[in-house]
């Protein structure tokens, strides 16, 4: 089975004085229908690795393959295109556009892609919000939603263009345990029922335990990759 996303010897060095190595020789492979977590102490390079995997940042060296295609040498527009079509992001601070309603926030990536017409976009956005249990909050602007609700709107938006990969950085960092559990549930559903790959940076050991694959990092290096289910 070919990996959906594969990183080979990724290295990210900030060219400061002295140079700071954020990610050091990281190699990993993520397969479809997998809920993967990246764990490790603060500042170990978890987020930096996620930004590299999500094409938000460029590695200093190393290769990144998506569906068997090497992504090195793509220009900014092409990378933006891949993010738009194949990646969905969920961050700790949900980052919804404050002027737009929940529904409009979910519609944004679809409008940008322009594959569906206006009615189809609206319908799909409603369906996604319904699936997140937010059908009745569609018209509200983010400031009228609770933290958990905002994060679910962000997940709905990440799913807008039906991406292969969901990349998430501490999605539960700001949420209470009930809302955290709900987010993890959704991620599991996205991986196991919809066949997407979910990569989630977290410092919550509980979440890592529930994942299909655990990538542990220390000082910029991937020190361990294992699948808890297979361990037993």
């Amino acid at each position, binding site marked *: 089975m070919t990996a959906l996303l594969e990183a080979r010897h990724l290295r990210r060095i900030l060219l400061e004085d002295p140079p700071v190595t954020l990610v050091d020789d990281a190699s990993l492979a993520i397969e479809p229908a997998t809920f993967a977590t990246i764990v490790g102490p603060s500042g170990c390079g978890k987020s930096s690795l996620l*930004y590299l995997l999500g094409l938000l940042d460029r590695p200093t060296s190393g290769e990144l393959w998506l569906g068997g295609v090497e992504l090195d040498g793509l220009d900014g527009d092409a990378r933006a295109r891949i993010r738009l079509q194949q990646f969905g*992001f969920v*961050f*700790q601070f949900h980052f919804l556009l404050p002027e737009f309603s929940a529904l409009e926030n979910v519609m944004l990536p679809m409008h940008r892609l*322009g594959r569906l017409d206006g009615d189809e976009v609206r319908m799909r956005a409603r369906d996604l919000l319904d699936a997140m249990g937010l059908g009745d909050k569609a018209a509200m602007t983010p400031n009228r939603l609770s933290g958990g609700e905002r994060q679910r709107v962000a997940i709905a938006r990440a799913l807008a263009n039906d991406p292969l990969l969901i990349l998430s950085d501490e999605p539960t960092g700001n949420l209470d345990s009930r809302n955290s559990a709900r987010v993890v549930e959704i991620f599991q559903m996205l991986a196991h029922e919809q066949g997407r790959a979910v990569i989630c940076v977290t410092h919550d050991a509980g979440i890592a335990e529930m994942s299909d694959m655990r990538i542990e990092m220390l000082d910029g290096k991937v020190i361990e990759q294992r699948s808890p289910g297979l361990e037993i």
Partner: protein
Amino acid sequence: MTRSFMLLARIAGKHLLGRRRQTIVAVSGVAVGVGFFLAVSSLMVGSQRDFIATLVDAAPHIIISDEIRSPTPQPAFRAISGAVALHGYKVRSEARGIKDWQQIVIAAGRLPGAIVAPSLTGAVTLRLGGREEPLALVGIQPEIEAKISTIEKNLRVGRLHDLDTTQGGVIIGEELAHRLGLNVGDVVSATSARGDTRTLRVVGLFKRGRGQLGASSGYVLLREAQSLLGRPFIINAIGVKLLDPYAAQPVAARLEQRFGYKAQSWQERSADILSLLLTRNVIMYSVVSAILLVASFGIYTAVSTSVTDKRRDIAILRSMGFSERDLQLIFVMEGLALALAGVAMGWALGRVLMEILGSIPFPVAGETDHLPLDRSPLQYAIAAGASLGAGIVAAWLPARKAAQVDPVDILRGAA
């Protein structure tokens, strides 16, 4: 493509509506700039046009006079040329006046739409009750003169045609008549430099303050002037009015070259005034462009703060898959929208200012007139073009910064 463009425009619109005060300030800046540009330039252009029209119409477009710019070659020089030195040559005396003027009149008359009016001007002295006033007596043919100059329009009393019907009729300026205590119908005696005296009857008065007509000019029939000045059949000026006043300069040059007499176009006669007008335009356009430029600073500030405020949004849009160009476009559109709104309001403001200016009474030569204004669409177009151009540049500078925002920096900072 268009749908994603609309999306970017909507994001830009939301940004502007979310920052209402900044938006209003930037828009009013442009509006005030455009409004005053329109008011000032319409006044400047309008007054200039009015002024040039007066300049062009008051006198013939070309005046051929009996002066020459270089002395006529003497017969001996014409006969002998080459290696011969001539000394002590007695210069042939010639009668003043334009020789063969009929030919010039015919030649000039062949120009498209040209009207040609020969005249004779000479100095006389008006005497009345022991008082004397110098008068430049101009002999004209009334029916032609009426078509070529604006005397007829500037008559307060009488008509040009009255010269034909009244024996010894003269038209003089109101001021001069007042000084001599003359009224229409009164007679006055005129003495020429040669000592001939004749009685003239005032048949018309032209208005005061019409500089071009001369405060001390008097119009009589051409043959009347010729006989009073003792120069029968002679004329010393030919006025030419052309269909296109702006062709006067080359036509004058051609006429002068062909006939040798000095032919002055209206541009040449008023070269100093025209260069003054040019200076005035340079001053006006620099001041007014400065206003528009300053207005665009408002757009720069508005877009620049918008970029700073929306760094988080920029990061999320970029992570979502919006390209650098998309982000740049969003902020350029914000600037463009501000400029467009400003231009629209500025047009309205300019219109209002023009109405106010236009309603101010402006006394000219004792008559109530209004300020001349140029309301041509060209001024509106210039104002809009300059503002939109400045607005786009002013927005483009911060928009470039928006495109360069590295989403990772923002995400790292916030996480």
